[in-house]
């Protein structure tokens, strides 16, 4: 038992001070002259077997964060550690080993599956790339994985277009668990699906987590889904985490003004449509030139003296959560 307690506390994913920026324009020599600042100093930790939800609106940098973690978006500043080992700096064999520990499920299974490959080949692709297994072994492994995600063995030789969206997402999930990863990055895994199918996929992901002790990083814009699915949540605005903590606590009693706005605007059965004033639906500031001081101050309705200074994500004294707002911290 002591061992399992120890593994529960061990962080599988540690992101520290991550900054991701892309060149937005270049001069005639091809050198970048301005940048899009997508992720601006993100710190987060996910413990083994837990789920962290990243919530925010489009353009807040949550998808870029996922891509940086999985290695699809290079970064110059900050560090991503998988199981305590730096991922971007790893080389050769070590990098291969780290890759196996981390998998991603994308939003749209239509585009994340090559439509010309049969299902067994899609599911076993990570193993195929790793090499060292015969075709028959791959097929056998694919069958085992397909059954684990609720597909039938006779589906294996079909092409993805013969499946519904939900079944395709099952194929993508089977592919992700093929390397027996510890961390799965879920980038809006149900946004392209109907609600009844979304429920099937969420159930499947929860079941896999129970059975395999998976650690999840869920990127989503759906507050209700994150509240249901995740232990912890981090709310992002303009590439920064503005509030983080236990999902239930943060999403029931938000303390950062942005989180409050986000929750007020989320469609709900219990409450009527919010007033326009309540939503404060300004546009996201331009992320080529980051604003001075608090990033949210242009949209905030409680602006006061301390907002001109840069805000720090600080733990509140009375709860387990962190908030990036001097008013909440006071």
């Amino acid at each position, binding site marked *: 038992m002591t061992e399992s307690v120890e593994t529960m506390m061990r962080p599988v994913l540690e992101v520290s001070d991550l900054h991701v920026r892309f060149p937005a324009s270049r001069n005639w020599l091809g050198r970048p002259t301005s940048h899009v600042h997508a992720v601006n100093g993100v710190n987060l930790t996910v413990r083994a077997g837990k789920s962290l939800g990243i919530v925010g609106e489009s353009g807040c940098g949550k998808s870029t964060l996922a891509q940086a973690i999985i290695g*699809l978006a290079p970064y110059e500043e900050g560090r991503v550690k998988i199981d305590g080992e730096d991922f971007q700096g790893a080389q050769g064999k070590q990098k*291969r080993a780290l890759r196996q520990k981390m998998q991603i499920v994308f939003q749209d299974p239509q*585009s994340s599956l*090559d439509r010309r490959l049969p299902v067994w080949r899609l599911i076993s*692709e990570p193993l195929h790339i*790793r090499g060292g297994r015969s075709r028959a072994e791959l097929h056998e492994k694919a069958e085992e994985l397909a059954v684990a995600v609720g597909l039938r063995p006779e589906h294996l030789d079909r092409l993805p*277009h013969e499946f519904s969206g939900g079944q395709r997402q099952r194929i993508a999930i089977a592919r992700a668990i093929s390397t027996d990863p510890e961390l799965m990055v879920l980038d809006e895994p149900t946004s392209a699906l109907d609600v009844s199918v979304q429920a099937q996929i969420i159930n499947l992901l929860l079941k896999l987590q129970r059975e395999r002790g998976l650690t999840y990083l869920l990127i989503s814009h759906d507050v209700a889904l994150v509240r249901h699915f995740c232990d912890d949540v981090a709310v992002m605005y303009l590439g920064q985490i503005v509030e983080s903590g236990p999902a239930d606590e943060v999403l029931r009693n938000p303390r950062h003004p942005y989180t409050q706005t986000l929750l007020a605007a989320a469609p709900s059965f219990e409450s009527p449509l919010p007033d326009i004033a309540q939503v404060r639906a300004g546009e996201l500031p331009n992320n080529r030139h980051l604003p001075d001081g608090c990033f949210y101050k242009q949209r905030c309705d409680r602006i006061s003296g301390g907002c001109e200074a840069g805000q720090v994500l600080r733990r509140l004294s009375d709860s387990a959560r962190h908030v990036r707002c001097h008013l909440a911290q006071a």
Partner: protein
Amino acid sequence: MSAVMPTEPVAANAAMRRTKSLSERMRYLWYLGRRSPLTLVGVAIILAVLVMIIAAPFIAPYNPDKVSLTARLLPPSAAHWFGTDEVGRDLFSRVIYGARASCGAAFMIVLISMSVGVLIGCFSGVVGGRVDTAIMRLMDVVLALPALVLAMALAAALGPSLFNSMLAVAIVRIPAYVRLARGQTLSLREQVFVKAARTYGASPFYILRWHILPNAMSPIIVQATLDLGGVVLIAAALSFIGLGAQPPTAEWGALVSSGRSYMLDQWWYATFPGLAILITAMGCNLVGDGIRDMLDPRLRGR
């Protein structure tokens, strides 16, 4: 306007493609063909030309090279459907045998330029950067060369022959495929399934082999089919000006060329080979258009 197109027919189309039996597939092809009769005409033409190429000795009533000085420049008749030429060879037989040289040449040209072009294009797209820029500028230079002029230059340097002129036409055709393949590669490289493969640690070669080439092929094949028509014309043109197939080889362009001098009195001599060129080129274009429409996702599921 995805919002306007109902999704149901697409689902039905997928349901249809699930059926695997051959007769079902043939029935589906017939269903598609019925809606574009011109494509069917094109297919019929291509099939006829293929039969001519394969079975020329069985179809042709005479030996195409057999000279008969008693039967010089005869008009079309029951014995000689297309008439005879100035040394009494049967023109119908020569047109049928000519398909081998003409279409064979055109096919080789397209095959060469397509394979070389696709290789260069995919490589350029995958590598990117300065290599990519250099390759594309080189292609711009090649694109600026007129096929016939290059062919004449090659003929002057290496002597006139069908092979040399084929080479010239093939070289000039390469950039079109390079651009197409590179464009496909660049857009496929951004596809989510390629990104997924990258997160599994796939090498560029693996991605090229398993994801980019298979997905890039359909538009390239359409381009090749459309090209075939044009190349048949160019190959004939080269032979016509004496840079391609040399007499006495039966080749449509060469036949038109020799028939040219008899145009006024013996109309059939140049007309029938000319018609063969025209109809074949048209057939290729019709089939190419048909395939393009079939592969166009916007027209799918109709």
